[in-house]
């Protein structure tokens, strides 16, 4: 609760700026800031008026690699945020779809070869343009889902992989795609993946908070015997 009383509100804003609030109270203030003009002004007041105290921390030289790391992470963000631009362009994909299908097939052979235990596979395609985004291969003990080159989730989102079984009411979460683009799932020999559908949805970073897909399904495909 953000207090109406002016003194209470000023004290709360001051404690917030000082970093004295407990996590819950701090989140509450942070969440209220966007809609609460008085609170926002009170926080700005303290940030600015207390700021001279920051001079008690003497400046120091950060490690030289600090900027390189920031620039590297920015580059990553930039590549990801470029996604939607060409993502939504239909024309390039009309001619590219066939190429991608061929590429997917080639890649499949490549990824399937190393493991003789692979008995089933799936190519996950975008529903709109059939662009292949993921390839999954699996056997009795393991299912491996690989992200194809050039595929990335929108900024500050993760891809999460799901299995939809014909007789199971809800999608089963297989896991969140890790940064390397390869998800390995240990499977039970008794679970029949052939006939199921694999799907990839866009979720908050770290995966769906609910255990069910919350964002759009961007790729999906049926699991077939190899």
């Amino acid at each position, binding site marked *: 609760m953000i207090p109406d009383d002016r003194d209470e509100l000023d004290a709360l804003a001051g404690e917030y700026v000082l970093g*004295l609030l407990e996590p819950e109270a701090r989140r509450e203030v942070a969440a209220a800031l966007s809609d609460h003009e008085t609170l926002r002004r009170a926080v700005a007041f303290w940030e600015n008026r*207390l700021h001279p105290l920051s*001079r*008690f921390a003497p400046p120091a030289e950060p490690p030289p690699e600090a900027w390189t790391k920031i620039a590297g992470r920015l580059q990553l963000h930039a590549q990801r945020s470029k996604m939607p631009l060409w993502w939504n362009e239909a024309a390039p994909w009309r001619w590219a779809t066939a190429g991608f299908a061929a590429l997917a097939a080639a890649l499949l052979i490549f990824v399937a070869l190393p493991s003789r235990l692979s008995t089933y596979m799936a190519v996950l395609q975008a529903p709109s343009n059939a662009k292949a985004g993921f390839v999954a291969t699996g056997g009795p003990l393991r299912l491996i889902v690989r992200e194809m080159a050039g595929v990335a989730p929108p900024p500050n989102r993760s891809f999460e992989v799901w299995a939809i079984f014909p007789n199971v009411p809800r999608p089963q979460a297989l896991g969140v795609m890790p940064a390397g683009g390869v998800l390995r799932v240990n499977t039970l020999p008794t679970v029949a993946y052939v006939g199921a559908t694999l799907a990839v949805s866009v979720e908050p970073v770290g995966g769906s908070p609910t255990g069910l897909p919350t964002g759009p399904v961007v790729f999906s495909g049926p699991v077939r015997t190899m």
Partner: protein
Amino acid sequence: MPHETEMRRRAGDASVAELSSAATLLEAVGRGSRLSLKRLYELESRRLYGIALKIVRRSDLAADVLQDAFLQVWRNAKQYSPERGSAEAWLTGIVRFRAIDTVRKLAREVPTGDPALGDAPVEPDVIERLSADADAEALKHCLTLLEKEQQKTIMFAFVEGLSHSEIAARLSAPLGTVKSWARRGLLSLRKCLAP
């Protein structure tokens, strides 16, 4: 820097060389200029790294704080507007919160006693060192009107990022007392700074 050329090509970067204040740079960052972010880093990183170091007291953690803070600046620069105050204070706020989050997540390290790592505790007697401009003069004046313990509580929290209980331990005072020093100190400061 391999990204430099690409950055220079971006529209809107042409005039960056002439920009120098943190506020102007921050506004350019808000419009998507990565070169401005780099200049802002060149301008502010030593100051902000020092602030982080004073709170987290470990150079590796302070470097992480600095990196995360600048990425946050990149994402949130649009939220800054000159009407809400100085760009430096806004940047300080981001770095302090990141640094405080870091130390609260880890159990706070025992100070090594190395002043180079920001381990020398801040004593409010050094309030005397605050001056040089009107804002600092006003704050200095108003802080000296507070009870000594209220002063210390506010200083320790702002500069070193100490929690209520850490301040209680340092001043050998009950937690409730420290909480009331903070609140009453803030309210007196408020009245003095903006009567």
